[in-house]
C-alpha cells in the first residue's frame, strides 16, 4: 500500500512541485497519474522511490515512512520497486543481457539463476533475440522495453513508470501498455505517470489528476 497524506514538495530554488497532496493506492491496483508537463507527476513517483524526500506530510510505502528512512534503508526499499524511466537510463556500453541482469547482480542473486531470470524477463518484453546486442542498436520502443525488462526482472511488487510511451508511435505504445496491463493482472501494483490521452483511455483504472502540484 502506498499512501500520501498532506504531502508537499518544495525544491531548493523555491519551486513548489506538489502542494498538500493526499491519496492512497491499494496493493495490486493500477493507477495513472495525469496532468500537464510540470504538474508534479515525476516528483510524485520520485517521492515513492525515495529519490526525493517530502518537504511536508507523510509518504508511506509498504508501511515505511519515506521521510524518516535511514539512508542505508533506501536501497532495500527500492528493491521492491521496478522503475521505468522516460529517458530509459540504460548503460549503453553494456549488452541487453547485462543491462537486464544489473538489479539481480546488485541483490546478489547467484549467477546460474541470473541467466534464467534475465531470459524470462527479456522473453516477456520480446527482446530475447537481442540478448547480446548493445542498446544503441535498438529502436526507441525496444529500448523502452529493455528498461521494462530491467524493472521487472527482480519481480518487484510495485512498478513505477514515468511517461513510458513518451516518444513512441501508437503501435509501440500499444505493445507497452499491454505489458503493463499483464503485470497488473498478475498482482503487481502499477503506477504510470503520463499525459498521453490514448494511453489513459486504453489503460482504464483509477486516475490521479495533478494540476500545478495539487490533486484535482
Amino acid at each position, binding site marked *: 500500500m502506498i499512501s500520501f497524506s498532506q504531502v508537499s514538495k518544495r525544491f531548493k530554488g523555491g519551486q513548489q512541485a506538489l502542494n498538500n497532496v493526499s491519496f492512497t493506492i491499494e496493493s495490486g491496483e493500477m493507477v495513472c497519474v495525469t496532468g500537464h508537463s510540470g504538474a508534479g507527476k515525476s516528483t510524485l513517483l520520485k517521492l515513492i522511490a525515495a*529519490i526525493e524526500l517530502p518537504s511536508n506530510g507523510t509518504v508511506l510505502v509498504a508501511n515505511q515512512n519515506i521521510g524518516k528512512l535511514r539512508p542505508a534503508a533506501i536501497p532495500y526499499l*527500492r*528493491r521492491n520497486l521496478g522503475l521505468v524511466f522516460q529517458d530509459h537510463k540504460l548503460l549503453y556500453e553494456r549488452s541487453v543481457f547485462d543491462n537486464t541482469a*544489473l538489479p539481480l*547482480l546488485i541483490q546478489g*542473486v547467484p549467477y546460474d539463476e541470473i541467466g534464467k531470470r534475465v531470459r524470462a524477463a527479456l522473453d516477456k518484453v520480446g527482446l530475447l533475440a537481442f540478448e547480446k546486442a548493445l542498446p544503441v542498436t535498438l529502436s526507441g520502443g525496444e529500448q523502452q522495453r529493455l528498461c521494462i525488462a530491467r524493472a521487472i526482472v527482480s519481480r518487484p511488487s510495485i512498478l513505477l513508470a514515468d511517461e513510458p510511451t513518451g516518444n513512441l508511435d501508437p503501435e509501440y505504445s500499444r505493445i507497452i501498455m499491454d505489458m503493463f496491463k499483464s503485470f497488473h493482472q498478475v498482482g503487481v501494483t502499477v503506477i504510470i505517470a503520463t499525459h498521453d490521452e490514448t494511453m489513459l483511455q486504453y489503460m482504464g483504472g483509477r486516475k490521479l489528476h495533478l494540476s500545478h502540484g495539487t490533486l484535482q
Partner: protein
Amino acid sequence: MTGGWLFNHQRALRLALARLLQTPFATLFTLLVIGLALSLPSAMYIGLKNLNHWLGHLPITPEISVFTQTDDPAALKSLESALRNSADVSAVRLIRREEALKSLAQQLNISDLADGLSHNPLPHTWVVRLNDNTAPERFAQLQQQFSQLPNVVAVQYDAALNQKLHALRQFVANTTLALGVLLAIALTAVVANTIRLQILTQRDEIEVSMLIGATDAYIRRPFMYFGLLQGLLGGLTALLLLTGFSLLTQPYLADLLQNYGNSFTPQMLSPEETLALPLGTALLAALSAQFAAMRHLRQMRPSI
C-alpha cells in the same frame, strides 16, 4: 535470496582487475608514480640502516674514561662492579697505569720516559663502553654519576664527537620519517585521484545502480579493491625499483667500502620489511580509495 559475502567480494575484485586492465597505460603510469613515490623513502630508510650499521663498525665508539688513583685491587674491583651496574654500559676494560705510561712513551717516541720520572704520574683507567644508541645527554649524566664513585679522580669522554654522531643519526632518521609521511600523503592523493576519475567515467552506471537498489557498500567495493590492487602493485613496483637501483650501484658501493675494510656488508630490506612495504601500501591505498569513493558518492546521491 542473496548470494552472500564471498560472491559480492569476488565480483568486486574481478571488476577492479578488469578496470585496471582496461586502461593498461594509465595503470602502468599510476603504478610507476606510486612506485617512485614509495622507493624514495624506502631507499633513504635502507641508507639509514646502512649508516647505523657502518657507524657501529667504525673505530669510534661511545666510551667514557674513568680515572682512579687507588692501587688496591679490592677497590679497583668494587669500582668495576659499580660501573657495570648501569644499564647503559655494555663493557668495561682496565688500562693499568704501567700500560698507559708505556703507550704514552711510544706515542711521544721517548723510550726512556719512565726512567726520567721518579714515579708513574698516570692514573689507572677504567674504559667504560656504552651501548651504541646512548643519547648525548646520558653521557653527561653518567659522567656526573661516575665521578661521585669512591676513588674516582676524573671522568672524561669525547662529548663533541658523540654529539655529532648522534645528531647525524637523528637527522637522517627524522628526514626519512618526514619524507615517508609526505610520500604516504602523495600516495593517498594519487589513489584518491584515480578513484575520482573512475567514478566520473562510471557515473551513469553508479547513478542507475543507486536508483535500482544498490547499497553504498556495493558501489564502493570495486573502488576499494581497485585502490587495494593499485597499492599492492605500486608497492611491488617500488621493490622492483629498489632492487634494480641496488643492483646498479652495488659494484661502485663495494669499491667504496673496500676503503673501510671488509667487515662491512651493505644491508638491504629484511624479509619482514620486504613483505611490509607492499602490504602496507595496499592497506593505505585501500583506505584512501574507500574514503574517496565515500566522499564522491555522497555528492552524487540524488538531491537528498
